[in-house]
C-alpha cells in the first residue's frame, strides 16, 4: 500500500513547457528540511544539474531496446524489409536498402523476415544515468542519447533507483522533476506517486495544457496540486486557473510572481531561495509549506 511506504514521491510536472518546473524544484529541494532524494526525470532535456552541481558517484549505461541495421554486403535489395517496416525507417540506397537509425523502433520484424539474414538486430545503448551527491541530497539523473527512444523506460529506471536510495538511506521524500507534455516520460514519472504538483502559468496555452495534464493525473488517480507561476502576468487567466482547480478538486499551493530573479538566480547557478531574500523566495516557501501540508 502506497500509504505504508517509508517515503513519499512528489512529482513536479507542467503540461506546457517553460512554466518553471526545474527552477521551482531546485528551490523546493533546497527548502526541504527532511532529507530528500531528487530525480531529474526530464531525461531528454535535463537541466536540474545546472543548479545542483552534482558530483557523480556512480554512472552506468542504459539500454532500452534494440536497433536493426542492414549489413550492406549481404543485402540483395529485395526490399522485403521496407515492405514490412511499419515505421518508415527503411529506405532504398543505390541497389540496396538502409535503416535510418532515427526512425527504427527496434521491433525486429525486418531482421526476422530478411531472406538473406542480412539484418543485424541487437541491443543499443540509449543513454547514460548517474547517481550523484548534491548539496540538497542525492540526485538521480540521466542523459538520453540524441534522437533516442525509450525515455519512459529510462524514467522508470531512475525512479526505481531513487526509491532504492530512499529506502537504504532513510530519506522521507523523493522529489521528481518531470518532463513537459503528457506522453511516456510523463506517465512513467507520475504512476504510483503520492502527489503531482503542476506548475502552470496564466496564459491560455498554459490553461489548456493544465487541463490535459491534470486529466492525465486523474486518469492514474494521482492527487493534484497546482502552483501558478508568473501569476501577475495575467490575473484574469489566473482566476480561470483557480476556478478550474476548484472544480476539479485540485489544491492551489500558491502563486509566484513574474520576476527577473528566476533568470538571475539561474545565471548565478543557484536556486531562487538561495539567491537571497526576495518576495519570490517567500512565495516559494509558502508553496512548499502548502505542499508539505498536503503530503502529510
Amino acid at each position, binding site marked *: 500500500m502506497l500509504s505504508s511506504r517509508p517515503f513519499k514521491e512528489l512529482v513536479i510536472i*507542467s*503540461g*506546457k*513547457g*517553460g*512554466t518553471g518546473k526545474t527552477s521551482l524544484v531546485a528551490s523546493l529541494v533546497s527548502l526541504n528540511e527532511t532529507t530528500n532524494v531528487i530525480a531529474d526525470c526530464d*531525461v*531528454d*532535456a535535463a*537541466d536540474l544539474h*545546472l543548479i545542483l552541481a552534482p558530483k557523480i558517484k556512480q554512472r552506468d549505461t542504459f539500454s532500452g*531496446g*534494440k536497433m536493426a541495421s542492414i549489413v550492406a554486403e549481404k543485402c540483395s535489395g529485395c526490399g522485403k524489409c521496407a515492405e*514490412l517496416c*511499419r*515505421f*518508415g525507417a527503411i529506405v532504398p540506397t543505390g541497389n540496396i536498402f538502409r535503416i535510418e537509425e*532515427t*526512425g527504427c*523502433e*527496434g*521491433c*525486429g*520484424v525486418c531482421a*526476422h*523476415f530478411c531472406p538473406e539474414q542480412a539484418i543485424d538486430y541487437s541491443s543499443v545503448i540509449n543513454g547514460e544515468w548517474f547517481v550523484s551527491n548534491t548539496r540538497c541530497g542525492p540526485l538521480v539523473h540521466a542523459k*538520453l542519447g*540524441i*534522437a*533516442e*527512444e525509450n*525515455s*519512459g523506460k529510462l524514467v522508470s529506471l531512475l525512479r526505481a533507483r531513487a526509491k532504492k536510495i530512499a529506502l537504504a538511506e532513510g530519506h522521507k521524500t523523493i522529489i521528481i522533476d518531470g*518532463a*513537459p*507534455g*503528457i*506522453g511516456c516520460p510523463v*506517465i512513467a514519472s507520475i504512476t504510483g506517486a503520492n502527489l503531482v504538483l503542476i506548475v502552470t502559468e*496564466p*496564459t*491560455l*496555452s*498554459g490553461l*489548456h*495544457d493544465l487541463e*490535459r*495534464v491534470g*486529466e*492525465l493525473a486523474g*486518469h492514474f488517480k494521482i492527487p493534484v496540486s497546482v502552483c501558478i507561476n508568473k501569476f501577475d*502576468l*495575467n490575473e484574469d*487567466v489566473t482566476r480561470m486557473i483557480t476556478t478550474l482547480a476548484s472544480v476539479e478538486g485540485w489544491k492551489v499551493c500558491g502563486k509566484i510572481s*513574474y520576476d*527577473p530573479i528566476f*533568470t538571475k538566480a*539561474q*545565471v548565478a*547557478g543557484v536556486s531562487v531561495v538561495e539567491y537571497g531574500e526576495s518576495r519570490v523566495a517567500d512565495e516559494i516557501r509558502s508553496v512548499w509549506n502548502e505542499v508539505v501540508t498536503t503530503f502529510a
Partner: protein
Amino acid sequence: MKIAIASGKGGTGKTTIAINMALVLSDNEHGVTYVDCDVEEPNGHIFLKPQITEVVPSFVPVPEVDKEKCNLCGECGEICAYSAIIPMKDNVLVFPELCHGCGGCSLVCPENAINEVGRSLGVIECGTAGNIKFIQGRLRIGEAMSPPLIRELLKKIPESDIVILDSPPGTSCPVIAAIKPADMVLLVTEPTPFGLNDLKLAVEMVRKLQLPFGVIINRCDLGNDDVLEYCKREEIDILLEIPNERRIAEAYSRGQTLVEELPEYRERFVELFEKCKKGL
C-alpha cells in the same frame, strides 16, 4: 518548403514563431499550411482560432488473439520486442498499451490466430484559419506514444507552398518524428543556462538528422551572452532575435498573436522567411 520550428527546452516560443510566420506568409500570397505536431499539448489553435471541418480518429494496430485458433506455440511472444503479448500456459495475455503496432506477432503466427484491432491514439483535426490551412493532432489522454500520431498527421498534410511544422519540445522521438520531413529547422532558444544546455542538445539532434538549421533567440535581452557566443563558435546563424517585452508576454497570455499586437514585427517574419530560403 517545409520549415520546422523546434527547441530543446520547452516554453522558448516555438508556437509563437510558428503561428506568426504562418499569418504573415499567408498574407503575402503564399499558400501556407500550419501543422501542430505537438500532439501532446497543441496550442496553435488558441492563436489561429481555426474552423475545424474534419476530425479523423487515429489508431495503432494492436493484436487480438482468436482463442479458437491459437495453439499456444509462443511465437508471438518470441518476436515481440515490447512485452506486449505474453503467451502463458493456457492463455495469451495482450498489453495493448505497450504495443508499438509493428505487426510482428500477426505475421509470425502459424495459425493466423492474431487479428489487429485499433488502439485509439487520438484525433487529427483539419480546417482553415483565414487563408491558412490548419491541421493538428491531439493525443488521447493516457496514450503514451506520440510518434505514431505525429506520423499519421504528417501523411495528411495538404499540398502547400509553405508548410510550417510546429514541433514538440525536447530532442527525442516525438520531435524527430515531427521534424524529419523538414527542409529547414528553426531552433528557438532563450539566452539562459537552461536554454543553452538544451540548445546544444537540439543542435546535436538536427546535425544527426543532417537538416539545415538556424537559431532564433527569444527574450534575447535577459540572461547572459553564452548562447550568442556558442552560436558564434559553432558558426550557427542567428536568424531572429525577439526582446523580452512584457507586452509580448501579456498578448501571448491572452491568445493574441505577436503581429496583431505589434504590427512592426510583420516585416521581421518576412525577413525570417527570406533567410530560410537563402539557408537552403
